[in-house]
């Protein structure tokens, strides 16, 4: 296997300008969906079919300044051992040699099983294409020698892209520096979580202070799928799903056999 490539995000440098969010939309041709302001700078609470990455804004009390404003860039973690990939009945998910988990919308039938399986809840159903969709780590850019759109546009240097082993080393040093300079709980995220991911965070505080799951877990359903269903692909799929997932997902798969992409589903 080729050396893994990783997107490193250092929260201590991020100014939440959200260039990454917009550059992602430019590169992936995603429209805006405008919703009213509710009292937080983050107008997106979660990823959706038209937004693959976003910035969270979280306020905490702080003994020095009275406030600590934490930012967190949120997108697909590109897990080594990707649940979405395991559960997809159509093998729409693949992994590039260097670690990006990519999703082929042409193969996707919109069953949304992956949206339930993902420990981070990243993939989202998109009504207008009747498919699931998510961040691709801009593999089409990377393979032509360009940085992912979010990394290219980042003005503050919070985002870098490169070999995972090198970036991990940088991240370790950075965490050491932060711990010595007023951030005693600084940590790395994504190094070991779920066996490792191709998205690594340098955090100035514990993961929960950024809304990250402290110990991300794979849902129980996925295990059923992985151990029982995938080996018997084909006619067994709907039956296995009927026992393990929502009937919506099952129906989707049955529908797809009839080539009937009906409108509906959640967004």
């Amino acid at each position, binding site marked *: 296997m080729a050396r893994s490539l990783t997107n490193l995000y250092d929260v201590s440098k991020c100014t939440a300008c959200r260039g990454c969010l917009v550059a992602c939309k430019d590169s992936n041709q995603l429209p805006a969906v405008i919703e009213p302001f509710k009292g937080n700078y983050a107008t997106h609470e979660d990823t959706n079919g038209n937004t693959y990455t976003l910035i969270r804004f979280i306020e905490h009390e702080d003994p020095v300044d009275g406030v600590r404003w934490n930012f967190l860039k949120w997108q697909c973690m590109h897990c080594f051992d990707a649940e979405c990939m395991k559960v997809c009945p159509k093998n729409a998910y693949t992994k590039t040699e260097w670690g990006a988990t990519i999703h082929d919308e042409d193969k996707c039938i919109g069953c949304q099983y992956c949206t339930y399986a993902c420990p981070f809840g990243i993939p989202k159903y998109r009504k207008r294409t009747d498919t699931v969709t998510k961040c691709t780590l801009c593999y089409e850019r990377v393979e032509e020698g360009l940085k992912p759109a979010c990394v290219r546009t980042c003005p503050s*240097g919070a985002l870098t892209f490169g070999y995972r082993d090198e970036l991990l080393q940088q991240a370790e040093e950075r965490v050491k520096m932060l711990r010595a300079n007023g951030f005693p709980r600084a940590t790395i995220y994504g190094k070991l979580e779920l066996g490792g991911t191709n998205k690594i965070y340098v955090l100035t505080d514990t993961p929960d202070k950024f809304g990250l799951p402290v110990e991300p877990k794979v849902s129980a359903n996925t295990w059923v799928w992985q151990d029982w269903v995938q080996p018997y692909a084909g006619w067994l799929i709907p039956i296995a799903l009927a026992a393990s997932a929502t009937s919506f997902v099952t129906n989707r798969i049955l529908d797809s056999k009839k080539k009937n992409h009906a409108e509906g589903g959640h967004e």
Partner: protein
Amino acid sequence: MSPAFGRGAMTNHMVDLKNTDVALIMGSNMAENHPIGMKWLGEGRRVRGTKIIHVDPRYTRTSVVADVYAPMRSGTDIAFLGGMIKYILDNDLYHKEYVNAYTNAAYLVADEFDFEDGLFSGYNADKRSYDNTTWDYQYDADGTTILKDPTLTNPRCVFELMKKHFSRYDIDSVCKITGTPKNKYLEVLKLFCTTGAPNKVGNIMYAMGITQHTVGSQNVKAFTIVQMLLGNMGRPGGGINALRGENNVQGATDMALLFHIIPGYIDSPMNSKPHKDLLSFVKAVTPGAANVQANNMEEFRAAVAAGIPNSGFKINSSKWVVSLLKSWWGDASKPENDFAYHYLPKREATKNYSHIAMFEAMDKGEIEGLFVMGTNPVVGGPNANKEQTGLSKLKWMVSCDLWLNETAEFWTYAAWERPVENDKVKILSPKDIQTEVFFLPAAAVFEKEGTAAQTGRWVQYRWKGAEPVGDSRSDLWMIDHMARGIMDLYKDSTRPEDEPIKNLTWGYGHGDEPEPILVGHEYSGYTVADNKPISAGFAALKDDGSTACGCWIYCGQMTTKPDGSLDYKPMHRDNVDNSKTGLGLYSNWGWCWPVNRRIIYNRCSIQPDGVTPWPGDDDRVLIRWDAAAGAWVGDDVCDTGKTSPPDKANPFIMRPEGKGCFFAAKGSFKDGPFPEHYEPWESPVRNLMNSQKFNPATKVWEPEKLGKVEEYPFIGTTYRVVEHWQTGALTRNLPWLAELMPNMFVEISEELGKLRGIDNGDKIIMSTTRGDIEAIACVTKRIKPYIVDGKEVHMVGALWQFGFKGYATGDPANRLTPHVGDANTMIPEYKAWLCDIRRA
């Protein structure tokens, strides 16, 4: 800045931020409004451990990445900086050799100059203005040489007077005024003042948080004092860097789209005796030339050639003026008719024509026609209700923009919707408004081509990457066609008053679209005889009509290629750093004024002898004196006479003194030679520093609109977010940005939320004596009440970027702001006023 250094522009540039040891960001939310600056401060952190200080009334996205954040009540910058000046002087932290050699610290000030209880000598309370004749130096018997005391001990020397002036700004008094916690204030003082060491350099970055006050100019003056004391001017990583807000506000200012100047920062002529003809005018705009005995231009030219004491580089003003006249009026500009000097409009000497004055005049029905060039005063103008009413009194308005912004549609029903009835705010309807509106759809930035000057004075070319949408046109096309249409109506006129328009030189190529390079050629300058660009720069300009140059500071940006065609330097794209020590000068990328000098006042980057670097700072030397060659050499273009030996080479060549000025002598400021703390026009507290409530030299346009603290108990301020730009016309119409910041909101502390029963996300009404707006409340920990003089004071922060057009909408916060401005620039006091807030 100009009264201290001679120029008002950003002294250093964006990439240079990486060379600083300590960055003081004050009155700027740089991470949001100039995000790329953070890239270079981050680079500084990586390579040299740069520390970042953020001083601001709010904890913003900039504060998040700062090493030290200190809150400061809006409008108290002079107190904050006055305390810093005192701290530097008390603790002997200033850069002594620098102060001695490069500033006017040793100059003796006239005995008549005085200061007492907030007033400088010469104040006239009825006129609210100063007679500044006493704000002057002491001269020798012949009246030309300024007396000095190099020991800096004479009580009348600038240094001692400065010490005395700021002695009242002790730390406790300062914190009482600013509401800054004392430990935070001390942290800022200690950290920033480390840059007084010769091997350390500190940088100050500011924006509208500094200038949009009734004391805006003096806020900047306080910066200049700090930076000269610490020896931070003219050095890489140093300077005072005004972060300009609009992509070409620098260029538009250079080109003099301002009432008080003509291109190249020359005063615009007035209907007064000193401006009555060309000779009088060039004498008036050439420092020190008032008493030159010259009866005609030839004699004046001879006097200039012989040298005029205390003139500085502006001794060349006549060359700039005549070359400008020549470029505008061509053959009609001749020695026998004063080079058509009389064609230039002469403004009323006693009248102000600035933004606020313009709208006051409009409101009185004094203006008939208005051109609005990509600007949006219905959202961005102070006291926007009044400005909108003013527009309704126009006979006609021409508006150019990409979108139908709020100003273009000021006459629509939506424009007059208000959240509450208020008998002081008149509501109009389309049928009441007789203004004819001509809307000209403009091409977007990448649908046309031309140059722009960014905040660090770099001029870069923008190529055309797409076709204009529909039938929209470039502004250049519009201006060209308007001009030709108007000139056509005057072509047969024989009236002398029509000559300025009839004889105007015009014609930029043969196509329908004018060629930007030919316009650039005209203002870069050329020799009249052969139309060849003056590549050598403005030193080659003449005042005998043999050269033409529309804007002298741009002279040298155009040269000739080997094949004889024009070579427009802003198009140059060599991005190799020419600095041998990696300072990031990029001198061959684009071009910058003046004469491609990337860091102005760079004479200060080396010791007075011109050959020795400041101790421990070898890497930050920009120029040095090469005795063998008899010239200044180095990676940057020297900012002093190229062949002036070190003892003659003054660092601040645009000042008559040639030195940086702690004391701003007469003619510089309208409100005093030293900064003094005054409260904003509307303030919830008394002035603890003197008995003047607010700036005694500021004009009050609407005294009846002064809000009382009993009715409007909270400080109101305005600001922007990274997701929107200025009035929002160019961002609220973009879905991707509207999605990120979809509505108008105001920010308040949790404490104020409790006090007024407002929860996060509630609809609120915010009011002042000027009007009311509706907005969504963002209740946040990022804003805290201030303890000022023992009292709790609350602040309401309002985004000012919204209006009723576009994808992202909301009420314009400027319906609340006052028509009062800085005593010198008339920049409105958007940043501190009184308001009330309640749940809608």
